[in-house]
């Protein structure tokens, strides 16, 4: 049950983009069309699952003082592996993602999950958390990609929908991504508020979903 809970929480309740608001840079940059969004999401899912697995394995032997560099090395290893595999077997996806593939190393979702979850939980729930968060990321990127591609060029997955030819090309660029993401975040908050009102309460985002649960910033205080 716990495995399933960890797996599904990333999809809606603790969605990395819509609730935790992590990984904005790849979200805006690679959701410009559906194929890019989905492939970026899946690449990140692989890295998340792999790095969560390894970090959960070594969590008891990594000295606290150097844990962040260790985590980054683990993450960078997985990203390099993904990059080489994509280059070898899916060159078109490799070209489409370009610079954003190596930049998964500094994607704060990956380090955030390593620090906030995998370093404190067991093997199975860490992998489940990685896959769940990755799939949540993939869903958001894919959905944003479909909407942006459709609004900008009237296509979805490069298939023409025959509704219009030239839409507004701003949707394919970063500003359009910002606008759409803002609308989606607003819509999600609206849904949560309505749900809370139905249950007779007031919606406040859970306190442990913001950056207070993460101790990265506290490193300097310890010393």
């Amino acid at each position, binding site marked *: 049950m716990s495995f399933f809970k960890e797996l599904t929480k990333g999809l809606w309740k603790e969605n990395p983009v819509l609730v935790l608001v992590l990984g904005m840079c790849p979200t805006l940059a690679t959701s410009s069309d559906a194929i890019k969004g989905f492939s970026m999401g899946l690449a990140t899912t692989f890295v998340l699952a792999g790095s969560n697995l390894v970090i959960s394995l070594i969590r008891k*032997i990594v000295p606290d003082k150097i844990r962040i560099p260790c985590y980054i090395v683990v993450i960078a290893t997985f990203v390099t592996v993904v990059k080489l595999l994509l*280059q070898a077997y899916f*060159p078109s996806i490799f070209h489409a993602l370009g610079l954003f593939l190596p930049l998964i190393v500094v994607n704060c979702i990956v380090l955030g999950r390593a620090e906030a979850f995998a370093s404190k939980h067991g093997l199975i729930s860490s992998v489940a958390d990685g896959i769940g968060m990755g799939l949540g990321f993939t869903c958001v990127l894919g959905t944003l990609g479909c909407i942006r591609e459709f609004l900008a060029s009237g296509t979805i997955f*490069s298939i*023409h929908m025959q509704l219009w030819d030239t839409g507004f090309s701003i949707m394919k660029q970063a500003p359009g991504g910002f606008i759409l993401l803002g609308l989606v975040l607003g819509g999600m908050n609206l849904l949560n508020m309505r749900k809370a009102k139905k249950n007779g309460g007031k919606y406040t985002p859970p306190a442990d979903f913001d950056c207070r649960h993460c101790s990265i910033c506290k490193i300097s205080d310890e010393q």
Partner: protein
Amino acid sequence: MNDLRKASNPFYLAFFLFMVCGLSTFVMAVTAMKTAKPIRDAQDKETAESLALILPAFDNNPAQETKTITDSNGNPLNMYIARSGGKIAGYVVESSAYGFGGTITGLVGFEPDGKVGTVIIKSNHNETPGIGTRVTNRENQRTISQVLRGEKQPEGLPANKALDSYKGKTAEDTPWTKKQVDFVSGATISSTAVRNLVWNAATAMRDYLSNEAEENKQ
């Protein structure tokens, strides 16, 4: 177990970090070795496929028969030679220029007499989607009704008005102007980049062919 996490001896910390890096290097090295051949194969396949799209029928392997030629700016360019029954069937020159979002690389096909043939821009450019890509990308768009009716994708190279406007051109004294080739309005920088790219290849081709002709005379 707890004392391991609380360790603060700098030598131990350095050693631990060194071990982590060593292990990660090992994993990356193994992956790099295992994928080296597939990556080369994938790149070769991409080159071979684009050459087959650009050139007319040929029976040698142009990816194996390459030469380096120099354009009017003195930059070396890679040239592939296609032969059919021993005779030259066409050339492809790999050339690049600066566009709106960095370097654009393209393959320019030439007929045996030096006229520009088909032009393809490689997909690893970074032009603005929907604006610059109207100049650079050849895309065959399928519509939803075609997909629902189960129609197959048409064979061959999709058309692009801007790229096709270079067909039959030869290098002259000054680069082609907006009147001679197709510039897409709103995408002047990308259009200029593509023009420069084809122009560089064409001047290199012109110089190469005139050198060849002189050598044959002697």
